[in-house]
């Protein structure tokens, strides 16, 4: 194995068994967090995972190999193939979307979207949000844009310790896709942009929520439909087209009992919107600035009710 001194996560596409994927971690040569996802016998799969938790690979393999269930293989047999491939370096560690968890329980959260390289707007919004008594600020992509001032913006976000997530434009910029006015990034800024979380999870009283930019996450090389929050993203992006197709809301409602999040926030649409369906809140953020001025979202929870207020400020120029 290339490097056994750190934890690496793997996703193995199975063949001939019910679950389409096996997820697991290798930590110093020990198996951890095995999950057979997407089908199969969940009880048996959990038992296998518990029995093998923390076991060294060699010991685990003794239990796994040579078990037949169907198509000349089985879930344990596929897990054996998966860990063997990982051990030999034939299975690349998964780099799925990155989730950052805000572990504090929040009451009033400020939300900014589509700053697109305008550091002055960011400063102004931060001042207004602080005056409004928010206890956290989440800045959704796109942070950078077709602007000559992206570097200033990145510095400002870092200086103020703003929790920021990556947008599709940021992802492209970090990978060298610069538009006309965008100066090439220095390596440290490029790395910072590239390593930004793509999903941010948070807690507001009893409600669990998460924010993400939009559907570019689904095209990331190791995106898995069975990752935490992937179901919600698949429903928002693919099924409802960012809540714009109400005709499929009955299907959305049928899938909601499987959600882990209560509040789902996205910014790709660049349009304010709030939908409350089957006890879940779906929120689309508008851009930080448009012809009407500046705007940000104030997210509050009052008992069971989630409220998003669009806060506006005048702004000239920039």
């Amino acid at each position, binding site marked *: 194995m290339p490097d056994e001194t750190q934890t690496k996560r793997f996703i193995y596409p199975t063949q001939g068994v019910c679950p389409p994927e096996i997820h697991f971690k290798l930590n110093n040569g020990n198996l951890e967090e095995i999950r057979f996802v997407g089908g199969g016998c969940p009880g048996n799969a959990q038992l296998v995972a518990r029995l093998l938790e923390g076991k060294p690979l060699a010991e685990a393999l003794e239990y796994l190999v040579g078990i037949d269930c169907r198509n000349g293989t089985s879930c344990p047999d596929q897990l054996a193939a998966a860990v063997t491939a990982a051990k030999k370096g034939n299975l690349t560690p998964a780099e799925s979307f990155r989730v950052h968890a805000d572990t504090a329980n929040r009451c009033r959260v400020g939300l900014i979207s589509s700053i697109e390289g305008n550091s002055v707007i960011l400063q102004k919004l931060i001042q207004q949000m602080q005056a409004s008594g928010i206890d956290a600020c989440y800045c959704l992509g796109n942070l950078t844009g077709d602007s000559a001032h992206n570097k200033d913006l990145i510095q400002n976000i870092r200086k103020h310790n703003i929790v920021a997530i990556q947008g599709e434009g940021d992802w492209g910029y970090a990978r060298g896709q610069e538009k006309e006015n965008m100066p090439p990034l220095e390596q440290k800024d490029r790395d910072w942009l590239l390593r930004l979380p793509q999903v941010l999870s948070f807690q507001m009283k009893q409600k669990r929520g998460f924010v993400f930019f939009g559907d570019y996450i689904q095209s990331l090389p190791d995106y898995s*439909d069975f990752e935490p929050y992937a*179901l919600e993203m*698949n429903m928002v992006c693919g*099924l409802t087209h960012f809540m714009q197709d109400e*005709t*499929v809301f009955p*299907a959305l409602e*049928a*899938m909601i009992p*499987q959600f882990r999040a209560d509040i789902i926030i996205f910014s790709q649409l660049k349009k304010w919107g709030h939908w409350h369906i089957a006890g879940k809140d779906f929120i689309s953020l508008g851009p930080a600035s448009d012809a009407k001025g500046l705007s940000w979202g104030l997210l509050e929870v009052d008992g069971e009710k989630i409220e998003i207020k669009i806060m506006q400020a005048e702004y000239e120029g920039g």
Partner: protein
Amino acid sequence: MAESVKVLPQDIQEIIEVHEWDMRTREGVQRFRELKAKCLPSVALDGDLVYESLIPMQEELIDEILRRYKEKNQNE
């Protein structure tokens, strides 16, 4: 919904091919949208959305399958 298909009599099973899509996946959602379905569960026969949000009685499903089968094979 797939269960109602799995319990169809053997002679019906022999003339059909069953595909089940998982709505949790991007592939399942894409197929759902291609079929222009709105509700779950949904059943399509020969690419036509026939049952939405309801599980048909076995007799009804068999009649529809046989009708389509005869229609397709009447010229053979």
